[in-house]
């Protein structure tokens, strides 16, 4: 059970944070198809900066500090990369779908070009001497003690970055729903002309939405590289960005439901990747492996489920009304 939950978290946390990234952008009125690209770029920046700082002399003793460096670098990378989207979508009023697709094409090419330039191979890794995982010893739990479920999940083999992400997620969700800024941002995605008429600067709000989105998506990419890819950036995040888009729609652009959707998707991903190791009740029987269902079925579940949900809920889905439309002062 503990294994199942921890493995689910590996996929759930990046999905949820990137889906929130999408929410911020779309709620401000800009479709962000570039999530995948931003994740790739963020993951690369995070890993690169960890390498740079560890070359500068930081070692395992400062591993948690390096982790923070990686997170900040990935956020910065995401913000920088999403500036390209903001520029094209907000200032130049270009087609947002095409702009996002362009960035999705650009990110892997750019990152691959730089990875090969730096390492000569197809991947860039965090230095192998570093381990960012926290073990039971770090929490003062002695080696011989049997761990209860809580300790297994929260105090053994964890990445602090996942918990940072969850805290950021909660804070940003509160900002989006319970602050003046959040209300203004959401109004720009629903009816920008009305927002404009009461003196809200729509362009600024949309910039804020896209850049926050970029920072979160970059962070999500780094989380994925760290936990799911073992600290490697390969110019590929296995379609997590697109999956996050699905999570966002599944969660109806609402942080609370997005968290739930991310759990469902994360569980499916986890089952698909390691269903033969999952032991729900600890009796040593791997129930899912015995069912004899092909792993491909589990892999397909999230996507098929999204399609079905879309089919049944398209009538009452609450997509921001003005998403995808460039803001035009003169329009009423």
């Amino acid at each position: 059970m503990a294994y199942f939950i921890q493995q689910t978290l590996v996929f759930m946390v990046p999905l949820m944070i990137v889906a929130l990234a999408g929410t911020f952008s779309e709620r401000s009125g800009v479709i962000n198809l570039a999530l995948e690209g931003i994740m790739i770029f963020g993951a690369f920046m995070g890993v690169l900066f960890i390498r740079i700082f560890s070359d500068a002399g930081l070692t395992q003793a400062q591993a948690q500090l390096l982790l923070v460096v990686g997170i900040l670098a990935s956020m910065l990378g995401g913000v920088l990369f999403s500036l390209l989207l903001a520029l094209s979508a907000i200032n130049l009023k270009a087609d947002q779908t095409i702009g996002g697709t362009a960035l999705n094409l650009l990110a892997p090419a750019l990152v691959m070009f730089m990875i090969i330039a730096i390492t000569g191979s197809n991947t860039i890794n965090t230095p192998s001497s570093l381990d960012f995982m926290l073990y039971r010893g770090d929490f003062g739990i002695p080696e011989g003690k049997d761990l209860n479920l809580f300790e297994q999940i929260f105090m053994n083999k964890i990445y602090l970055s996942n918990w940072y992400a969850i805290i950021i997620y909660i804070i940003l969700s509160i900002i989006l729903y319970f602050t003046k800024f959040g209300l203004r941002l959401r109004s720009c995605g629903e009816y920008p002309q009305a927002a404009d008429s009461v003196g809200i600067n729509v362009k600024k709000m949309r910039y804020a939405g896209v850049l926050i989105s970029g920072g979160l998506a970059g962070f999500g990419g780094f989380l994925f590289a760290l936990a799911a890819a073992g600290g490697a950036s390969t110019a590929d995040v296995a379609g997590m960005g697109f999956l996050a888009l699905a999570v966002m729609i599944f969660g109806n652009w609402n942080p609370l439901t997005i968290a739930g959707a991310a759990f469902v998707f994360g569980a499916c991903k986890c089952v698909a990747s390691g269903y033969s190791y999952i032991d729900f009740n600890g009796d040593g029987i791997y129930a899912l492996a015995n069912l004899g269902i092909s792993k491909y079925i589990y892999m397909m579940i999230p996507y098929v489920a999204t399609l079905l949900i879309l089919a049944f809920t398209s009538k009452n889905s609450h997509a921001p009304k003005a998403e995808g439309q460039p803001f035009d002062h003169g329009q009423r």
Partner: protein
Amino acid sequence: MTFIVLFSILLAIVIAFATYAIISTKKAKSSGNTTWLMKFYAKESTKTIISSLIAILLGLFVGCLFLVMFVGSDMNGRHVSGFDLVDALQLVFFGIFNTGRNAGGSLIYGWNGVSIGNMLFRATPLILTGLSVGIAYKTGLFNIGASGQYLIGTAAALIVALSIPSTVVNPIIIWILAFFAAIIAGALWASIAGLFKAFLNVNEVITCIMTNWIAAILVTSLFDKTTGPFNFLLDPSGDKNYKFVYKTAHNGVETLKLGLDSIFPNSQINFGIVIAIIIAILMFIIINKTTFGYSLKACGSNKHAAQYAGINSKFYITISMAIAGGLSGAAAALYYLSGNTEFTWSTYQSLPQVGFNGIPVALLGSCNPIGIIFSASFMAYLDISGLQIRNMTMYNEYISSIISALIVYFSAFALIFKQILSGKIKLFKKKKITVDDPPKIEVVMNNTEVKEEIDTKEEVKEGEE
């Protein structure tokens, strides 16, 4: 070296012509006459082509900046020198004509049948995926699902081509069957997104993304080494080790070369390129010269107006997506039925790039089937240039992917470029903004929008008659 001289002469001629055009137009404007140049320039298609060219030039320029940025750095432990930069810049523009290095170590140029033939071979699927995206775009749909349709088409083509024994059936008939199987499979796959859009009003971008990944997983599972129902099509021999599907040549099914290999010796080219061009021309005729194509476009420009005029927009949206899928399927068939291309899809975590590359191809060709033939060739050319850059310099081939991605990014601005070209947006605004300046621009823009709407409505009425 002679090549560079030729190129600069060409560039000089173009610049001279452009200056002449601008000056003569200004003169004619002041005297109130219209010259043929002004008429040519006033055409919508001229502006479209010019804005595509601007996107290409900007993409190339920024891409070259990347090359410049890395001068003096160590790549793979190999030092990038100024000579590498000069060579790489040459190869970005003329890579296709590169025939190696001479004794002095500088690049030499000439007719390179291998490169040009390979370029045309690579352009074959790109033309079709480009058409796939372009046709859907004409109906107002953004077909980001070309990759998934391509994969499904690949699976269908390979299964048909390899499971019918060529000892019983003539290989040419098998080829035709496989080709159509791919088209039908792709069309059915794409119509999922079409149906969702037409009847449930679900955004096609999202359904396409979902169906893409479902296709990737489905095709991987079909050819899974142990559990896949078609694992008997995997090549067990030595280094292939069940990782690749047999080449279709294994069953004697190959696209005919019809003498093209004598023009481009040692290259992969085959008759597929001709088929692709024929399909493009057919699409051009269907879109521009038939009632069917007219209805498709009407649904794209204004769904409600089309519906009002008696066009069944749901039917046309579904069928447009199905055609797009069929084209992607055909792309896969022409690529994999060539006989010497191998298919492996054990990596369900990625999608075939050729599907996504249909997007830049279509955008660059501004969704015009004839334009798409050229833009696909250009993209294939960039690919070949990238390989030449990897082989000849210290850079790696991803520079060409960077350039093509940049070109898509800039072609998203095509509308802006067009408005600048037609003077609706002034590039250099006067610094002192008068009070009535900004509204003026907006009024103009609004007017054109309204006008366009009226235009489509009128067109639709004509169509009804």
